[in-house]
């Protein structure tokens, strides 16, 4: 499939659109959720620092020597484990008569290290937050406040490794993207299924149209979704109207034939039997007019029928009807008319009357020329319907055969009937994309082979 046909595919367009929106939604959702979680964890981190700072403040007192000391050690075990990531430190601030003493007290977790804090003196009651480099080079989040105990100015510091905050965020993000990935995959699969299921009626529509085209159905059969049903109904209406137009054209052609031929009969009978110039002129031109009417009627009817889709005519009933008719018409001649057994599935992709016309003319012609026997055989050859009509008559010389298929040429003026027979058959067959082939018959006479489009 080329890119151009892909772009023209409804399925491709629906899929592309859906997949784009799924991807966009998942990306935005992932980014938003990750951000929210990180903010939440940060808030918690800072709240924890503040809690530790409050605890430190509450436990701070002065001992007998006026040195700061803790009433009780802080409870978090990480404060007693070296470099566990949670630290506190108390600096003595510079005041009149006293120099600044960093790390007056510190947690055991700091071991021999001192937190290097920016020079900053929060006003009383304020808590300042900073980021500093920890004892092992890691980034620490830090909270500090200033207190004064008995005029001794102190700075209380609590710091924690930011890794404690980053690690759960990273873990959460990993799981979040995994879950969103699974969700996206599921949605994409669902979209795929939806597109295929949603577009299934279109495949059904195509199959129904195909049956009409192949001549297996006269109209589109089956129920379709509400969105497609009006289309199908419209199409069936058009098909029905086509069939109606063809039928009307047929009837009109028949009426015209009737209207023309009765006066022609009157003229022919009035002139018949007389032997003067006028009678001969009338007779000759009545015959000519009759041939013209026959020829153009046959063509007009066929032209109408060929444009009618969905026509399918089983062969066997047509052959049976014609054989019955031939036997009756040629009853006085003791002819043997034999139709070889043929599968009931053989069918012509076209109109029943046209098939009758073609086959009727071939059979009538064969019956007129046969001395005793006419055989009909049919089958499918190279996907085409092939019907052979053999007779045991005199046959036609090879050089005359071409002429027989041309308009109005008769091999023998003595044999009654229309000289148009074979020419009309060939004309009709050609309108259907088929043809008539004349050859020698194994029975000794003529073999006329009618090749037509077959219907499944």
């Amino acid at each position, binding site marked *: 499939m080329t890119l151009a046909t892909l772009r023209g595919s409804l399925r491709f367009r629906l899929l592309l659109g859906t997949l784009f929106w799924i991807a966009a939604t998942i990306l935005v959702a992932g980014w938003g959720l990750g951000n929210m979680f990180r903010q939440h964890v940060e808030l918690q981190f800072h709240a924890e620092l503040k809690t530790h700072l409050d605890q430190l403040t509450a436990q701070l007192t002065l001992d007998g020597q006026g040195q700061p000391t803790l009433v009780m050690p802080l409870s978090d075990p990480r404060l007693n484990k070296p470099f566990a990531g949670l630290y506190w430190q108390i600096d003595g601030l510079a005041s009149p008569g006293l120099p600044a003493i960093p790390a007056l007290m510190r947690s055991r977790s700091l071991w021999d290290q001192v937190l290097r804090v920016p020079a900053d003196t929060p006003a009383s009651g304020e808590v300042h937050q900073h980021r500093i480099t920890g004892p092992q080079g890691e980034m620490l989040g830090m909270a500090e406040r200033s207190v004064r105990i008995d005029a001794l100015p102190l700075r209380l510091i609590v710091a924690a490794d930011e890794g404690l905050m980053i690690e759960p965020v990273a873990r959460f993000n990993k799981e979040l993207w995994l879950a969103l990935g699974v969700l996206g995959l599921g949605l994409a699969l669902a979209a795929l299924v939806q597109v295929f299921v949603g577009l299934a009626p279109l495949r059904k529509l195509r199959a129904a149209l195909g049956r009409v085209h192949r001549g297996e159905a006269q109209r589109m059969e089956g129920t379709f979704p509400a969105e497609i049903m009006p289309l199908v109904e419209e199409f069936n209406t058009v098909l029905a109207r086509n069939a109606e137009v063809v039928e009307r054209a047929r009837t009109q052609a028949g009426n015209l*034939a009737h209207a023309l031929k009765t006066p022609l*009969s009157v003229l022919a*009978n*009035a002139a018949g039997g007389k032997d003067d110039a006028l009678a001969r002129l009338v007779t000759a031109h009545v015959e000519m007019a009759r041939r013209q009417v026959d020829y153009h009627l046959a063509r007009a009817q066929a032209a109408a029928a060929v444009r009618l889709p969905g026509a399918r005519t089983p062969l066997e009933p047509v052959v049976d009807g*014609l054989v019955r*008719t031939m036997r*009756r*018409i040629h009853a006085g001649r003791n002819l043997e008319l034999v139709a070889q057994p043929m599968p009931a599935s053989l069918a012509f992709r076209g109109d029943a009357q046209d098939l*009758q016309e073609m*086959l009727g003319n071939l059979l009538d012609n064969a019956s007129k020329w046969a001395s005793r026997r006419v055989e009909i055989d049919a089958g499918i050859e190279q996907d085409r319907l092939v019907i052979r009509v053999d007779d045991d008559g005199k046959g036609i010389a090879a050089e005359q055969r071409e002429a027989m298929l041309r308009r109005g040429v008769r091999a023998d003026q003595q044999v009654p009937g229309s000289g148009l027979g074979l020419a009309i058959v060939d004309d009709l067959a050609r309108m259907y994309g088929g043809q008539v082939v004349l050859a020698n018959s194994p029975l000794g006479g003529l073999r006329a082979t009618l090749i037509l489009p077959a219907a499944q």
Partner: protein
Amino acid sequence: MRILVVEDEPTLAAQLAEGVREAGYAVDVAHNGLDAHFMGDTEPFDAVVLDLGLPQMDGITVLKKWRAAGRTMPVLILTARDNWHEKVAGIDAGADDYLTKPFHMEELLARLRALIRRAGGHASAELVCGPVTLDTRNNRVTVEGRALTLTSHEYRVLAYLMHHAGEVVSRSDLVEHIYAQDFDRDSNTVEVFIGRLRKKLPPGLIETVRGMGYRLANPQ
């Protein structure tokens, strides 16, 4: 032999009637389907020439009704629509042959003769009974090769007897088959024709079966 001609176009109907009458048959004419059906149903015709495009009731329907009622006379269909669809429909409705318009009167008569002959079980156009030969193609009667001159009524009587050679033919049968419907029928005239024929034919050929009718002796 009595023929029913069914044709709605008056000129053509007249031409047909004239042509058939000239060929030695008694002719009745119907101009629409209803009349045709009634006549064919009630009168004994030896053959029918039936146009298919008829007012009031179409030819195919008329034919089907006859056949359904058990009327077996041979029917020659006359149609303007020269297609096999209609021919097959006609034959399936019970027709014996068809002819498309425009047609030659000679061809129509030839088909008619063939139908009547086949209906009587005769293979040849010449009917032979002892020394008498009747050629249906030209209405010629010969006795041992010698041509016989007959009036049209005498010919009809003899032709009917020869088509039914060996069978007893009642006087009323003869009347119904040699006269058209509108003719002033008189069964006594049949005896007159029989009497004249007996004078022209070899003695003993036409037997009288007392109380029943006539019979041609020595059939072949």
